């Protein structure tokens, strides 16, 4: 029990110290080659429904994509290696290899019964390190994996990313998820009474950033106990320079403040190393059931005086 207490205390202290400064690169600062997210146009694909998975990639040259999927894979500590052979799936399932294009299309022709049967079979396998046990109550959660290579300043860089798709076996349509969408993004000088959005950015000025996201994007779905619950929405505010106040903002149903999701503050400070003449913002909106969308927007930056 001392361990639990120490752990909990440790979490609290870590949370406290997370506000401390560091020289390590910031997560939301996009510099060079980055893979920022992966989206599927249908996060919970139905039988025979074609799903397209695509990635938000910034920078890098000579990009090489390799998409694959797997119904039962190892955990992060083993690079999500696929642990179930293709042959074991039987006929009717798509190939694990999904191609080398920027996007991959995949459909799962299996019936809900086939999905449930496969899920039950997989749930009898030992659980890889660090992974949750299989939960077949809604369907089969499969993993889509992207191995992305790029040339960066003459060097080969590789990023591996994974995303889950839920193949629903539960006929209850309430579990179908759709991607939340961003309507618009704007910046406005802080304390500017003109009511006008800015179409360029100036050094040493502070801007209020605003996203337009409809509250209708928050879907309701039945939780494990069958009670209807609201999605949690999170925006990650990537940008190519400057300082953003909050890396992420969220709509937390427990706190019932939707504007907390859509507001942030941006500034190009004196010591900022940004040298370009165009500031790029990459806004990634996701829910907590695999739904993702993004928006990119650029602003010219006036020269530093």
């Amino acid at each position: 029990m001392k361990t639990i207490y120490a752990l909990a205390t440790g979490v609290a202290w870590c949370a406290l110290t997370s506000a401390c400064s560091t020289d390590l690169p910031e997560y939301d600062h996009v510099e060079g080659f980055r893979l920022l997210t992966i989206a599927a146009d249908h996060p919970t694909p139905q039988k025979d429904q074609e799903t397209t998975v695509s990635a938000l990639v910034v920078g890098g040259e000579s990009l090489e994509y390799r998409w694959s999927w797997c119904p039962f894979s190892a955990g992060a500590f083993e690079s999500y290696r696929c642990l179930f052979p293709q042959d074991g799936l039987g006929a009717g399932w798509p190939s694990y290899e999904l191609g080398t294009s920027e996007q991959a299309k995949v459909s799962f022709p299996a019936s809900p019964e086939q999905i449930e049967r496969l899920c039950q079979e997989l749930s009898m396998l030992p659980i890889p390190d660090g992974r949750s046990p299989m939960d077949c109550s809604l369907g089969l959660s499969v993993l889509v994996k992207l191995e992305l290579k790029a040339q960066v300043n003459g060097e080969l860089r590789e990023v591996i990313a994974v995303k889950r798709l839920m193949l629903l076996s539960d006929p209850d349509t309430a579990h179908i998820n759709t991607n939340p969408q961003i309507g618009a993004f704007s910046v406005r000088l802080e304390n500017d009474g003109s009511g006008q959005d800015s179409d360029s950015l100036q050094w040493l000025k502070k801007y209020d950033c605003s996203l337009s996201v409809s509250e209708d994007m928050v879907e309701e779905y039945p939780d494990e106990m069958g009670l209807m619950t609201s999605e949690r929405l999170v925006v990650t505010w990537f940008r190519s320079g400057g300082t953003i106040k909050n890396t992420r903002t969220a709509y937390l149903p427990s706190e019932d403040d939707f504007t907390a999701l859509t507001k942030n503050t941006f500034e190009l400070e004196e010591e900022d190393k940004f040298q370009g003449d165009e500031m790029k913002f990459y806004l990634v909106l996701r829910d907590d059931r695999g739904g993702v969308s993004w928006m990119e927007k650029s602003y010219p930056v006036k020269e530093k005086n």
Partner: protein
Amino acid sequence: MRPLLETLCLIFAVLLAPAWAVAQSGQMTQAPKLLEGAQAEYPAAALRERVAGKVELLIQIDEKGAVSEVELLKTSTQAEDLALVRNSTISDYGFNSAAEQAARRLVFSPAHFDGEPASVKIGYSFQFALPPKPEPSSAKTPEKAGPSVVTLSGRVRSKGTRKLLVGAVVTAYKKNGSEGYEAISDDEGRWSFYDLRAGSWQVRVEVEGYLPAEATEEVLEAQVTEVDYYLRPGRLNRYDVLVEVEPARREVTRRELRVEDLVKIPGTMGDPLMTVENLPGVARGVASNGIAVRGTSPDGTGVYVNGVRILNYDHIGGLRSVIPAQMIEKVDFFPGTYSASFGRSEGALIDVRLKKLAPDQVHGAVDVSLLDVGAYLEVPITDTFAVAVAGRRSHIDVVLDAAVPEDASISLTAAPRYYDYQILASFRPNANHTFQLFGMGSDDAMELLFADASSAISNAQSSVAKNSANFQRVAFEYQYTPDNGIRNELTLAYGRDEFFNSAFGVFNIGALFHEFTLRETLSWQMSKNVLLRAGLDGRNFWADYDVTASRPPREGELRVQAEEEFITTKGRGVYFGRNAAFVEGEFSLPGNVLFVPGGRLEHYELTDEWLPEARAVANWQMLPEFTLKGGVGIVHQAPDIDQSDIAFGNPALSPQRTIQYSVGAQWKPVNYLDFDVALFYKDMENVIVPTGELTQRNGQAVPLRYSNGGSGRAYGFELLAKHNFHNNFKAWVSYTLSRSERENEAGEPARLFDFDQTHILTLVASYLFPLDWELGVRWRFVSGNPTTPYLGSIFVADADTFEPVPGAQNSSRLPAFHQLDVRIDKKWVFDTWSMTTYLSVTNAYNRANVEALGHSYDYRQTEEVTGLPILPILGIKGEF
């Protein structure tokens, strides 16, 4: 009153018995006190030849307080006229026989061990000081006219603490040496002179361990002059212990920390439990890690207060332990192979022993530092009943509230704060019965409100992180010691532990424990050489809990961040029982060998297993100053509660089993030097490790989560070299060389244990300067903790985070740690109280010690996370 010329023996009531001279088991609860002094006749030859002398004796005081044996240790003489002595044929001038004869007439109150009168040896000196050369007109005693009347009277007390001093020699004499008389202070510290002639008298007061005092007093005709003398101790510390008794030899290694060892060690802020970290075998901890000993995890160290287990012994972040030094008599630390009367801790055992209250008057202390403020008060209610209370409250919250700017990304809704309280009552109606009641409680709380919780943790569902923990303990102890070699100790305790933690809505733990402890020990001293002990040791608790959390990472596990499984479990009145019976014998064998075999039968309620444990320790005192020792013992440690919970773990887990081996030697070449070496080996079986295997429960395949499939070992060498307080200096050197390994599965290659530290070196020293200045330093050098390097990372899109791909587990190490801590104390001693100010500087040369590695979001870059920079803490303490 005794004529000065007849005795002139300044008695040093030395109650500091040499540790090697005492062969008593148990704890001295009452030191012997001198009730009746005896005058040694000044040998005529020595008087004639004007020779002074000092005779040092070792005397044995029996159970009734009489002197049963006298052993001559040392005689020294000094002559006024060296030429006369050189021509003399006399060897000791008769000092030895005079002192021995006088010593046999001394009467003491007997020493008590564990409440029983017992024989003890103490050092005792007779000093023969030459009287002034007689002048024919001056050597006479007061003439009495009628009955004697008191003319000069008073008490002798210790300066600063007002403690009454018994056996002080008070001498009243005329300045010209014409008259002189002597009195000895009694149990109440009181002395009196009768029928002194009116006029001016010189008074000199002397007692061992104190600086002598001199004064001039005016005695008036037909009046009593009442005066108290406050003597300045040679070493000022209220909590100094009068008699040091050799620790019982029931264990191979037992480190006994007396309070004077504890309170002034730099870097420990006077905290008794933090001091344990300076002993051999103890790994350097970070924050609230706990105390990891001899290659086992902090979970394997049991902390007890008077035999009652305490779960949360330190405040938030490991800043302080919950028991104030003023209430502690000593801290016993057993790094392994301990008595069969204890169990369930495969690592070590720390038993905090509280004071046996026997205040002669009201005493107290107030301690204020930048960290907290504490107060202590002890009060004698009657001759047999005394009470002490203490409390402490941090003020970090006030400091942090002021320090954190308003626009920071965190606001401290409830800044970190803690408080604790203790109450101790002792009732001893007679020598056979002792009752003690101890209560304590502690409360810690912290609440943070994050402006952007999702930035701190990508799956945050709330902006709030909260942490609170509080507990209460009440323990009743009854000791019955009839005069027939029987001794019975019964302890009943109730504890209530409650803690609540939540972070960002994704991690919630709430738990409430009601714990009942029963400890019953019956001892029987069958004969001089045989002591038997048997007893019961029960801990039973009932828990209510609501938990939603991921499985806490255990030793050897890396924290999984993305795709964590969050488990929800709830329990009401869930019972956990840990009950045991034990027997133990102490056999004194010929050749100064003590053999202590023991056995313990532990019942583990969850799997209904009976767990036999055998223990054996042997000590061979080859020479008075040299002892060889060795021992072996089996200990079982139950799974932690979450490990055996049906949702979080595996209820079919068995306790881990460790066989502890230890051999060592102890050498005390002189009274103030101790050397202690030990070799240890631990063989661990049934080690609880995480597993991905499934099991069938109620016809369903469910994750097993943990199994007993692991194994491990730890081995090493320990050295403790200690220079006890002597010539105003004390110091110790502690060194540990060790290695601890684990195998997560049979056949897997061994890996380093998380807390493995190859070299642990600690140097502690302090020097008492004149005018009560004291300087203490501590320097530590410790190998860096093992770490696991990362080979790369995977981006987990749904969690919007990167997950590391680890390399070989614990295949790398952090840089070595070294740090200097300094403490300066200055004490001002007034007659009835004293005040100390201290400056404690932690990390005096501002070493940037690496405590962990920080990683960039994609684990491609690392940076060193360093510990606290130089940290001065100023404090002030008043005692009365």
